[in-house]
């Protein structure tokens, strides 16, 4: 997966590039809108991440330029200004997402993955499986090592999200938004409690702890590497 970042703030650009590269993407960085447009024309990117305030061409104009050249890859805006008009403008221009600085990298990564996943047709899976944890979407049943685990509706939703995106660190805000539809900076303590309760049902008494807290980032469901 190739990603183009157009960001004039050098530090932000470099950190984003490093972070996304380490997350397994191929990342190019352009320092201004004109360079960004040239790069995007020459290569085949799966996603462009555009800063709104850019020297030369601003983010909106770069996106318009891309669309005018028939390039239809998804685009994501980063901005320091959180104005409703900006948001509306971004969506009107066909942006796929909109992140307001300061954002956490975990959030950005999760959203990037969400966008890139969107393109692929999700196969109709009926069961999710990670190690000995199984989740049956049709019968709404969860079992660990063959033993049935009883979950509430929201716990089921939370586990489904973690399993669908296993191996990815999911920030609290993304979990709140996906599972509870709370699309604002809500009390993050709630997610902590919810994950703790889910974890006690899934991992208590198990040798392999699947649900892990990544401090300062969020939560991930995966088989620990050091085992």
């Amino acid at each position, binding site marked *: 997966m190739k990603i183009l970042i157009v960001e004039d703030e050098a530090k932000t650009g470099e950190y984003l590039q490093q972070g996304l590269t380490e997350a397994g993407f191929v990342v190019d960085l352009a320092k201004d809108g004109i360079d960004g447009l040239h790069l995007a024309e020459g290569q085949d990117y799966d996603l462009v991440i555009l800063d709104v305030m850019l020297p030369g061409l601003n983010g909106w104009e770069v996106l318009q330029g891309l669309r005018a050249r028939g390039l239809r890859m998804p685009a994501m805006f980063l901005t320091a200004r959180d104005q409703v008009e900006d948001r509306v403008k971004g969506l009107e221009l066909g942006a796929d997402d909109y992140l307001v600085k300061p954002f956490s990298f975990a959030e950005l990564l999760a959203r990037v993955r969400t966008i890139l996943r969107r393109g692929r047709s999700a196969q109709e899976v009926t069961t999710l499986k990670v190690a000995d944890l199984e989740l049956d979407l049709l019968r709404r049943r969860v079992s660990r090592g063959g033993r049935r685990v009883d979950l509430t509706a*929201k716990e089921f939703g939370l586990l489904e999200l973690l399993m669908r995106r296993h191996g990815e660190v999911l920030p609290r805000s993304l979990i*709140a938004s996906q599972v509870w539809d*709370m699309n604002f*900076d809500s009390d993050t303590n709630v997610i902590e409690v919810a994950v703790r309760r889910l974890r006690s049902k899934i991992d208590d008494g198990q040798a392999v702890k699947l649900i892990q807290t990544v*401090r300062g980032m969020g939560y991930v469901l995966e088989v620990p590497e050091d085992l």
Partner: protein
Amino acid sequence: MLRRLSLTHRLTAFFTAVAAMVVLGLGWLVFAASDQHFAELDQITLQDKRQLIEHLLAHAHSAEDAQGRLNEALNHHHGLLAAVVTPDGQTLFRSDGFVPLPQTQLLTTSHDMAPVLQVGSPDGRALRALLFKVSAPYSPASPLEVTIEMDTAHHAQFLADLRLRLALYALTATLVSGLLGWLAAHRGLAPLHAMRARAAGVSGQRLSERMPVDQVPVEMAELAGELNRMLGRLQSDFTRLQDFSSDLAHELRTPISNLLTQTQVTLSMPRDAAIYRDILASNAEELQRLARMVSDMLFLAKTERGAQLPRKETFSALHEVEALLEFYEAVAEEKDIRMRVRGEGDILGDPLMFRRAVSNLLSNALRHAPQGGEVHVIIERAGTDIEVTVENTGEDIDSLVLPRLFDRFFRTDPARHRSESDGAGLGLSITKAIVQAHGGKASASSLNGRTRFKLSFPRMA
């Protein structure tokens, strides 16, 4: 151009123009009256002489006799000249210095009051003349032609002097009244200057300065009063903003200083990778809190600035509250708190903002309800409003503290500077700002072990 002229200049110019008009009008009146007066005097004199000559000639029995009588009567009159001519052109009498006037200037008439002609003589003297015909008894068939002239030089001189004096007076009077007008305008506008001086003293540091309402004329008192009210509003807004920025600086300083110290201490000597990881994670947590505080502040500033609600729709308050109760379910179960909602109602507004407002109240209620307590949400209609009340059991809050709960960064316990779950102390201010953006009110009460936060939304916001 006139628009930019100072008020003093404008008033002075106006005053001067009025004074000049009055003085000039008066001067013209005096001059015209004098002129007329002299003309009447001259006419009377001329008519007198006409009667005299007519009388003389009426009693003359021959041409010689008439000549003698005329000589006797007229030769001693200074400034009065006459000529009597027979119809055949012989001069019967002619005063010394008589100026023969061109025929065209003379007007013959039989009327008693023959017109008096103002004429200039060929030698430049000012004259008034009267021409008439009179028949003498000794030759009734042929009337004599009489011309009387009067030298009006001294009258003309007097009038010229008068005109000059009047002009000088008018000029002086205009100048003096202009000066007085300027002084009056200057004095009259002094309160305005005083106000200007006061206004110049107003700055961010000195917003307490006020206009001297009692010392300005009534016309300006209203303006001064309005300015004072404006200053009052600005001062309170400014003070709030100032408190806010200093609060903000204070709230940011502690975590930033912690971050800095922790990072520098870590860097001061080599450590295990695990320790670095730990420190970075802790920094990330702290930074996330800071980021959240900043975005909360921005949200608050934007909402309080009275920005329009991004979108408005009618939504079910019950539906939103139920979603929130699901969200907080896990937290409530942890503390064994029973949560319930009752009532319903539709609200016109932004459902996302509504969620955020109620979310803060629920989070607050769950934090303050004791283990095994209760949290209730009541949605009810009150007049035209929809009221959403979040109630929790727990210790009463001091009534003195209640109104301050919605203040930014306000914490009931000042000693507990930061707790993991307490957020930045902005939650309730955000709730209040959201409700106000919907045109509603937020209030708090605490009685008999139940603390209630009530949000009233006007149904047709």
